[in-house]
């Protein structure tokens, strides 16, 4: 039996006040995937996610959530959504907040409070159970918001900038929560503009820039778009000449080492063997791992990225 796709988006576009926020974006989320929805501020991530949930109607294109229209009764209770802008009822306690959202998603009252208590204990918030939200620290409140969004254990998680505003310790906690959810076979799509989180967590990434999708594929494939780099150093003057056949470009760093952008066919092992054969005494041999950030820059270009960073679309973000 083929599992139903939680989300499929076909050619959706959306403009606000004549400004294009999302343009002809299509992708399908397969069950069990962890997808990083990446791009700088103003790339159209939040607008796309809002259209996916049916909170905003697209100007054109089609969105299917669990095979039906967004907002159809069949999809309620199956989605856990953590929006970018989030908060809590100030006068509710942490357990009331979590239980309220769980109940809205179909969990019975008694069970909802039981889940809330278990989750708060599990994530180190036992002392906050009966504390009013207004009396909690920002970090605690953010954790409670996340727990409220996921308490009903949905099939599909949509997390919009879940890491924003969290300190490094809580970012780590959140990463572990995401991994736990993934281990249960749930589907996750989360947006972020911090590439490192996606690199660590995702098996597929969708890159957005200027309201358009610029890449959709496995993380490895995205990384393969980045020219491979290496830093190599030696006191031997022959090193530059020896490296030239392997490099697309070669530049000398301040410490005297060489910064190479390798040719597609160049191989780290071959470079090392050549140095040994030529009896060159190496002081540094450091193949650089490509990052998603570099992949993004490689795909959209530095100019475009800089342009997007300064022209953030205010509407719909």
């Amino acid at each position, binding site marked *: 039996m083929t599992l139903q796709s939680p989300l499929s988006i076909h050619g959706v576009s959306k403009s606000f006040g004549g400004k294009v926020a999302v343009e002809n974006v299509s992708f399908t989320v397969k069950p069990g995937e962890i997808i990083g929805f990446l791009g700088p501020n103003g790339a159209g991530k939040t607008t796309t996610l809002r259209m996916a949930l049916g909170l905003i109607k697209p100007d054109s294109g089609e969105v299917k959530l669990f095979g039906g229209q967004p907002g159809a009764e069949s999809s*309620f209770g199956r989605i856990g959504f953590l929006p970018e*802008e989030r908060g809590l009822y*100030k006068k509710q306690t942490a357990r009331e907040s979590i239980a309220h*959202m769980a109940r809205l998603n179909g969990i019975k009252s008694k069970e909802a409070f039981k889940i809330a208590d278990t989750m708060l204990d599990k994530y180190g918030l036992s002392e906050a159970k009966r504390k009013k939200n207004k009396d909690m620290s920002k970090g605690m409140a953010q954790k409670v918001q996340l727990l409220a969004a996921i308490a009903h254990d949905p099939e599909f998680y949509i997390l919009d900038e879940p890491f924003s505003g969290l300190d490094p310790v809580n970012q780590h906690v959140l990463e572990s929560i995401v991994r736990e959810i993934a281990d249960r076979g749930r589907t996750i799509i989360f947006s972020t503009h911090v590439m490192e989180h996606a690199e660590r967590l995702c098996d597929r990434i969708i890159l957005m820039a200027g309201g358009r999708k610029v890449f959709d594929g496995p993380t490895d494939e995205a990384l393969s778009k980045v020219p491979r780099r290496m830093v190599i150093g030696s006191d031997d003057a022959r090193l530059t000449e020896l490296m030239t056949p392997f490099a697309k470009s070669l530049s000398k760093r301040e410490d005297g080492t060489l910064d190479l952008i390798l040719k597609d066919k160049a191989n780290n092992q071959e470079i090392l063997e050549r140095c040994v054969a030529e009896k060159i005494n190496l002081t540094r041999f450091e193949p650089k791992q490509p990052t998603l950030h570099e992949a993004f820059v490689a795909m959209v270009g530095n100019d475009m990225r800089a342009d997007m960073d300064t022209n953030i679309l205010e509407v719909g973000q």
Partner: protein
Amino acid sequence: MKFPAINMRRTYLIARRDYLGYVKTWGFWISFFLPFICGLIYAFVLWSGVSVSPTRYETILDETGLHKAAIIQLDKDNREKISTEVLSALGETILPAAQTKELNALIAEKGVQAGQDYLNAKIPGAGNKLKAAESRMIFVEPPSHDLASLKAYMRGDKQFQFDGEDIKLNGVIHIYEDNGINADYWSPNFNNPEAERLTKKYFKRLSTDRYLAGGNLSQKGLDAARNEALTVNTFDPTKTDLKEGGSQKVTMTDRVPYLAAGILSLMLWLTVFSGAYMLLTSMLEEKMNKLLEMMLASTRFTEIIFGKLLGVAALTITAMLPYIILGIGTVIGFIFFGDPEIAEGLKNTFTIKMVVFFIIFLILGYVFYGAFFIALGALAESMQDAQTLTTPIMIVLSACILVVPIGMESPDSPILIFASWFPLSAPFAAIVRLPSDPPLWELTLSALFLGILSIGVIMLAERIFRFGVLSGSGVKGATDWFKRTILRRKTN
């Protein structure tokens, strides 16, 4: 046109949270218990004899020696008259008609004390309520016969003995000859007009007596002539429900339904006024708490709107419960123990037609205004925004209350008929028109029209809500949309 589906459980949960959110606050319970607290304080004041206006000690320095006794007698007469009226009114309110007649006859024959005793015999303790009507002004003999010395008593420099206590003099009525009779009133508490008013009344009456005496007439004769004046009865030619041997004469039975409809209309207005504002602030609170977007993944826009409408409706009913119970209790009390004319009038008021249309217009009026205020709350980003947006509607809503006196005085007024079709005033106008028995088709059509408009407002509210909450652009977004779409101008 497709009306969106609503999940009742989610709607209930939203309503419940909104309801509990308010009910758990101190302010709500203070408002709830306020009528009871006020009642208890009033009862305590009555029981303990504490008065908010302490007894005033006044004196009359009458250098002519002609007026002092007459002024004091006039004060006694006035008090007796007020006590008689209050006792009679009290009897009319709490006694059956036959006993009221007996009471009035007893007061006329044997005085107020006899009336009080009669009332106490019928309803123990009831006659004692008259204490509240007693004057707090006591005339004392002047401690000095010189105005200059009396001023020291008024300033508090000196005190005099009264009933074994040291007392400060509050005022002096000074009557003296100086090119004719003159009367001055001296008091450091000159804003309390009781003694001054009494003196003015005495001299006015004296002047009238002298004038009448010129024609060999007297005040007593004038009063008797006034009492013998013809009474004008009011008749209603449309009145068909004639009791055995009755006529088309208008009685309290005929007037009560108009009064009751006016009160019900005011009640609806109060519900809408307080409820709508709560909805606005509730929506603003949600927006400022930044929770709506998360909730929207689990609920529909319409469920949030209806949930809020239900929650605040339940809250308003709870807040008004003391008044509702008091109102129902008063109506039942009147029907069983009150004046038969009023009881009959109340029975005529609460017909099935009245009750059904009151409920319909109460719901429609609340939903219509409530949805409107939810939409405004979704657009507002701060309390300042909310106030700016709601002021025009609050002015219109306040103006709508004017239909109540119009409806009570002239139920066939064209303004009232127009108001019962105009959506903003329709709920209040339609209710106040009910006693004049407007055609059923008019009421039904008016309700239908308001119902359709209410659905329209809900759908509009949903759009504004969706736009206002998710675009994050609030009032600016709306003005930008207006510029783009209506004025065809570019926006930033």
